[in-house]
């Protein structure tokens, strides 16, 4: 396969366009106490939120970049050249027709209202720092489901919001969770009351439109006893010439017997640093499942986690990463077993094309005196060219004799023989390559909701077209 020196570019044409900026609120360039105060003033934060932000800023400043284990590419982020808050200065609209025209056009080009009509129970669309549109179907709202932006959540539902906010992912968890805690804006707050099973997914759509901008959405989802929810998020940005930062924090809380499925298809343009902290807290017999697809960005560092706090809780991460030229997908999973009979499963598949680099980084922790905890981890990597790179760095700690953990990883190629065989049956080289790669991820993609598996297959097809030649 060494002959393929193809330059691969992911098809981002669907998201690669920008409209002129019309921001009324702008916190300016750089980060300091004044930035935090500006954001808090604009958002009319309660005092506890302002204090929370300021403390987080201190934590952010005190923590070094984690370059002793992570990519040195992080040093290319200039925190003093980023704009931390931009918004059109308008209220979030409930009705699509009220959304300002140019923003409306942006999301229409991305197909948001169409999808909403087709299969979603609710949609939120975030443009730079704030949600511009948020709607939930009446039937779902009537069941007591709350689906609003994080600012609305903390103001209108403080009794639930404050109880869990920052509890799953504390400010000091890492440098980027501290940064998010300082300047967060946008993101979703969802509460599903006991026993309510939301049939259709809720979706959030994140869009960066401004150059040198940092998007720091904060999502908190609480699913009460026996309730169920599927949440999907998508993200795009136009291709600017300078680096853009996206650093989100997502906290999930599944109460007793609840189920949460959180699906991400990340297709940022290849100049975005995507440094995201995602973690769920699963109480007794609850189940949290992260489905995480990383296709875009320059550097993604994201390790969705589940803390299994209650007996028989279950955590799962299904991850697909596609690393093309100039991309580094540093993804993985964290499974913290904190109660008896908890089980977790991690399945990760990565594909490196051209000069792309895919890294799996995982943590499985089974502390003392737990019984009958089980973890299964499988990581498979596929290398397409001789210049591609793949790494696997799992960390597994098991204490005590009552538990079973297994980890397996393998690395393979699309073999020249396979391709030759398919060509000999009449497929073009591109078709053959595409078929091989789809075969590699197929068993995982099948577990995705229909709309996503179709889109993902299409993306992979597009990519393979560029990679052979």
């Amino acid at each position: 396969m060494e002959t393929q020196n193809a330059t691969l570019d992911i098809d981002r044409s669907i998201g690669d366009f920008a409209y002129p900026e019309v921001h009324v609120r702008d916190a300016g360039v750089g980060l300091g106490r004044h930035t935090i105060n500006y954001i808090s003033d604009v958002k009319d934060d309660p005092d506890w939120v302002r204090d929370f932000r300021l403390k987080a800023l201190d934590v952010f400043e005190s923590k070094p970049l984690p370059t002793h284990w992570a990519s040195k590419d992080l040093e290319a982020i200039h925190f003093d050249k980023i704009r931390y808050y931009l918004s059109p200065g308008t209220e979030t609209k409930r009705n699509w027709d009220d959304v300002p025209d140019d923003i409306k056009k942006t999301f229409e080009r991305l197909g948001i209202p169409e999808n909403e009509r087709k299969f979603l129970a609710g949609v939120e669309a975030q443009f730079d720092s704030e949600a511009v549109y948020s709607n939930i179907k009446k039937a779902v709202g009537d069941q007591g489901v709350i689906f609003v932006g994080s600012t609305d959540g903390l103001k209108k539902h403080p009794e639930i919001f404050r109880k869990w906010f920052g509890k799953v992912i504390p400010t000091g968890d890492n440098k980027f969770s501290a940064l998010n805690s300082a300047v967060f804006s946008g993101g979703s707050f969802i509460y599903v009351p006991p026993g309510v099973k939301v049939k259709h997914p809720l979706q959030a759509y994140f869009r960066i439109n401004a150059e040198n901008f940092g998007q720091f959405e904060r999502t908190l989802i609480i699913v009460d006893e026996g309730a169920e929810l599927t949440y999907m998020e998508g993200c795009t940005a136009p291709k600017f010439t300078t680096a853009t930062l996206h650093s989100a924090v997502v906290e999930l809380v599944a109460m007793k017997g609840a189920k949460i499925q959180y699906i991400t298809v990340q297709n940022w343009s290849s100049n975005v640093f995507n440094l995201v902290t995602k973690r769920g807290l699963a109480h007794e017999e609850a189940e949290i499942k992260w489905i995480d697809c990383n296709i875009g960005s320059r550097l993604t560092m994201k390790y969705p986690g589940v803390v299994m706090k209650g007996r028989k809780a279950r955590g799962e991460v299904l991850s697909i990463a596609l690393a093309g030229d100039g991309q580094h997908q540093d993804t993985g999973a964290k499974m913290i077993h904190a109660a008896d009979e908890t089980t977790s499963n991690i399945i990760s598949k990565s594909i490196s094309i051209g000069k792309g680099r895919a890294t799996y980084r995982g943590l499985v922790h089974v502390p003392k005196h737990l019984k009958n905890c089980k973890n299964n981890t499988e990581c498979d990597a596929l290398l397409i060219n001789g210049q591609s790179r793949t790494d696997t760095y799992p960390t597994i700690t098991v204490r005590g004799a009552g538990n079973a953990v297994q980890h397996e990883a393998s690395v393979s190629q699309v073999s020249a023989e396979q391709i030759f065989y398919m060509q000999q049956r009449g497929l073009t080289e591109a078709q053959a390559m595409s078929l091989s790669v789809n075969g590699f991820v197929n068993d995982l993609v099948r577990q995705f909701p229909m709309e996503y598996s179709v889109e993902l297959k299409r993306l992979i097809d597009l990519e393979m077209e560029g990679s052979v030649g």
Partner: protein
Amino acid sequence: MSSSLAVQPELEEIAQDGASADSRGLLLPEPGSTGWFGQVQAEGWRDFNALPAPGRTDEKWRFASVKALDLSLYNRARPVAGVDREELIGRSCGLAESAGRMIFANDRLLTREIQALAKKGVIWEPIEKAAVEHEEIFRKHFMTQEVVLGSKKFAALHKAMVKSGVFLYVPRGVEIELPLEVFHWLHGDNASTFPHTLLVAEEMSKVTLVDYFESADSEAPGFACGVNDLFLGPGANLTYVSVQNWSRNALSIQINSTVVSRDASALSMNLNLGSAFARAENVSRLAGAGGRSDMLAVSVATGGQEFDQRTLQDHQQPDTTSDLLYKNALSDKARTIFSGLIRVEPDAHRTDAYQKVRNLLLSDEAEANSMPGLEILADQVRCSHGATSGQIDEEEFFYLLSRGIPPMVARQLVVSGFLNEVVERLSCRPIREKLRELIETKSAPA
């Protein structure tokens, strides 16, 4: 001891070396020795002082109890003489037959035996002698391997402090049937030792070397900091076995490297039994096409022992193979750490690399940490790794009980069976038997 062995005791010339007979603290500079070796040692001492000590956030020491690395407790070891010397020689029991033996205590050679190999050009000398008499070949290889797994500072300390050890040179085409054996004894409270093994196996040669690391008193605190470099020429075949059985209160750091040239084949096996904290770093560099390295280890961790094992399978050239299998059996409050990396360099196409670590947890207080890693930068590669942590299979155990075997015995049988899978990979039967016996003694219920 067969009568064909020519015994050459060398006690006089080495053990009278009174300069370090005092028990000053270890971390005071040595009165300078002269010549190129003295310069190397001075350089080691400078580096040791300049390099930072491993800290809590050091990735290469992740999970390790770095507080165990306090060297201020240890002294230079005194020479062992008289009755003690005779006793240690008597206690140096290895295999029934060997091609040669060297016994060291506190870094001084006690005895050296060798079968008639000298006329084939085999060099089997303590390093202080080899450094003078075979300077060219010795200097070419001595401490030339970069220490990449975290113990740079300790390698520098070793370089500054090393007094003796083994230099084995096997010329082109020479095959030594029987294994060669080396005993390193540590004697005295808080004593320190710096064992060194340097092995150069030339093209198409074949040799087996066994290192035994032991303490005279199995409870005495002590410090061991060893370096072991193995070089295989094209087509050479080497089996290296080490038995780490320092005292239960010792701190041990062992830094090993193997360089495998074209079509050569190395197999190394480390058995970890002793020490309170034992760190072992093993690097295999596959530096020639067709090279193969098998890296094996068995650890029986009991009480409060901590075994910290770091490995690197570095595939530098195409068509190379490596296969790592580490097994740990953990009882009581024991901890193990395994951090292994398979690195396939950009041009090392058609690499075949395998890595497996298996932890058997036998108590509720034991802790096993595994960090199996892969870094693949080449094409047409077959790589996989696996890590498992689990307990005794209930069904296996029940089966044994149902055959009338008492629970304690059944448990030991399962543990031996688990660990013996690694030992079986050795082709030399007497070594297999020796290792099995040592494993059984250690894992027997107290």
